[in-house]
C-alpha cells in the first residue's frame, strides 16, 4: 500500500518548518560569509536550524533607492521567516519586524554553522531595539 502525498500537503509541511533568515555577504552555500548589513546585503539564506536545509535568494532591497530596511523586512514577512540573524538592524526594519513578531538576533561573528549553534543554544543576543541609525547600510 502506498500513501499519496499531494503537493498541497508538501506546502503545509514546508510552512511548518522553522526558517531562520540570515544576512549573507556572498552566495557560497553553508560556507557563505554572514553580512553585518541587514537591508542592503546581497543575499539572504533561509535555513532550518535543525535539518540545515536551506535556500539562498537575492535580496530584492539591496539597491532600493530608499527604504531598503522596510522592503527587506517585508521580504522576511512574505517569506515567512521565523527569526532573523543580522549584524545590524536599523529603526524602520526593527519596527516592521517587531510588528510582525519576528524576533531578530545579533550576529556575533563566525561561520553559519557556529551562528546556528549559538542560535540553537540561545546564546545570540536579541535586538530589543535598533542598534544603528537609518541609512547605516549605505556606508558599509
Amino acid at each position: 500500500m502506498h500513501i499519496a502525498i499531494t503537493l498541497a500537503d508538501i506546502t503545509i509541511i514546508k510552512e511548518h518548518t522553522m526558517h531562520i533568515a540570515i544576512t549573507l555577504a556572498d552566495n557560497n552555500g553553508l560556507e557563505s560569509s554572514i553580512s553585518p548589513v541587514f537591508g542592503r546585503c546581497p543575499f539572504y539564506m533561509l535555513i532550518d536550524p535543525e535539518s540545515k536545509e536551506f535556500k539562498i535568494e537575492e535580496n530584492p532591497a539591496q539597491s532600493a533607492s530608499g527604504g531598503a530596511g522596510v522592503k527587506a523586512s517585508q521580504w522576511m514577512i512574505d517569506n515567512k521567516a521565523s527569526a532573523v540573524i543580522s549584524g545590524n538592524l536599523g529603526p524602520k526594519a526593527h519596527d516592521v519586524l517587531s510588528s510582525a513578531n519576528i524576533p531578530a538576533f545579533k550576529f556575533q561573528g563566525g561561520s553559519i554553522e557556529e551562528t546556528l549553534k549559538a542560535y540553537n543554544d540561545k546564546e545570540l543576543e536579541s535586538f530589543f531595539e535598533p542598534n544603528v541609525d537609518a541609512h547605516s547600510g549605505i556606508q558599509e
Partner: protein
Amino acid sequence: MIITIASGKGGTGKTTIATNLAWAITHTQEAENKGTTWLIDCDVEEPNAALFIHPAFEKEKNVERLLPVINQDQCTGSGVCVDVCEYNALARAGGKTLFFKELCHACGSCVLNCPEGAIDETPEMIGLLQQGSRDSLRFAQGILEIGFSSPTPVIRDLKKWIIPQKIQSGSTYILDASPGTACPVVESFRGADFALLVTEPTPFGLHDLSLVAELIFKEFKISSGIVINKSGRGDEIIEQFASEKKIPILMRVPLSRDIAEAYARGTLLVEAFPQYKDQFIALHKKIGEMIRERQPKQ
C-alpha cells in the same frame, strides 16, 4: 527668458553670479522698459541669495504635501499599497499596515490603488515660499522645513508661484540652483531657456561641471555657457573641456582677495567694483543672443 545657474560642485560661485547678474541687469531692463527681472533662489535647503540682495519680503505661501492616512478598520490587508509604493514607505506586518513618513514622496499611488478606499490624505507643511523686492529687482526664495529631505516639491511650487505660463517679452528670470545634479537641480532646469554653468578652475570644479554639462546635454538640450569664477590659475583644464564640448566661456571672475572680502561682507560684486556691471550686462546680452540663435527660424 529663463536662465538657470548651476555648477555641479558647491561653492564655485553660483550665487555670486546669479545675484550680480540679476542686480546688474535690473536697472538696464527697467530703463529700456523691457519687463521685470526676477531672481529666484531655488537652493531651498540653504537659500543664501537674500544675504546679498537684502530684499524686503511682501508675500509668503506655505508648501504642503499630502500624506496617506491608513484607516486600519477599513484596511483588509490586501497589501496593494505596499506593492505599489516605489519608495518602500509602507509595510504589511502583524495584521497592520505600517507607514514610514520619512520615506514617503507623497505620490498618492497608495491612495489611488487601495481596493478598499481605506487611505485618506492629510496635508503636511514642508516648506515656505517668500517673495519681495529690492528697488525694481523682484526676488523670491523657497525654504525647506527643517527635518525634511525632499526639496524638489518646494522648488516646483516656488517656480509655479513666480513664473507665469506666458512670460512677458523682455522679462528675465534668473534661477539659482542647488549644487549637484540630482532632482532639485533637474527641477530648477525644467522650462529653462539657458544653462549658465559656474565653475572654478580646479579638478573638482571640472569634474562636477562635466556632470552638470552632461545632464543639460542629455535631458534639456538647451544652450549653455560657462563662467569661470576664481579664475587665474589652472583655467586651461576648463578651457580644454569647454572647447571639447563646444560650450563657450562667457565670463571670468578672477580669484582675488578684494572680491572675497566684499563677498564676506554681503556686498554685491557690482556694488563693490562697479567695473563688473558692464561685464554682467554683456553676459546677459550674450545669453539672449544664444537663446535666439537656438530657436528655430520663423
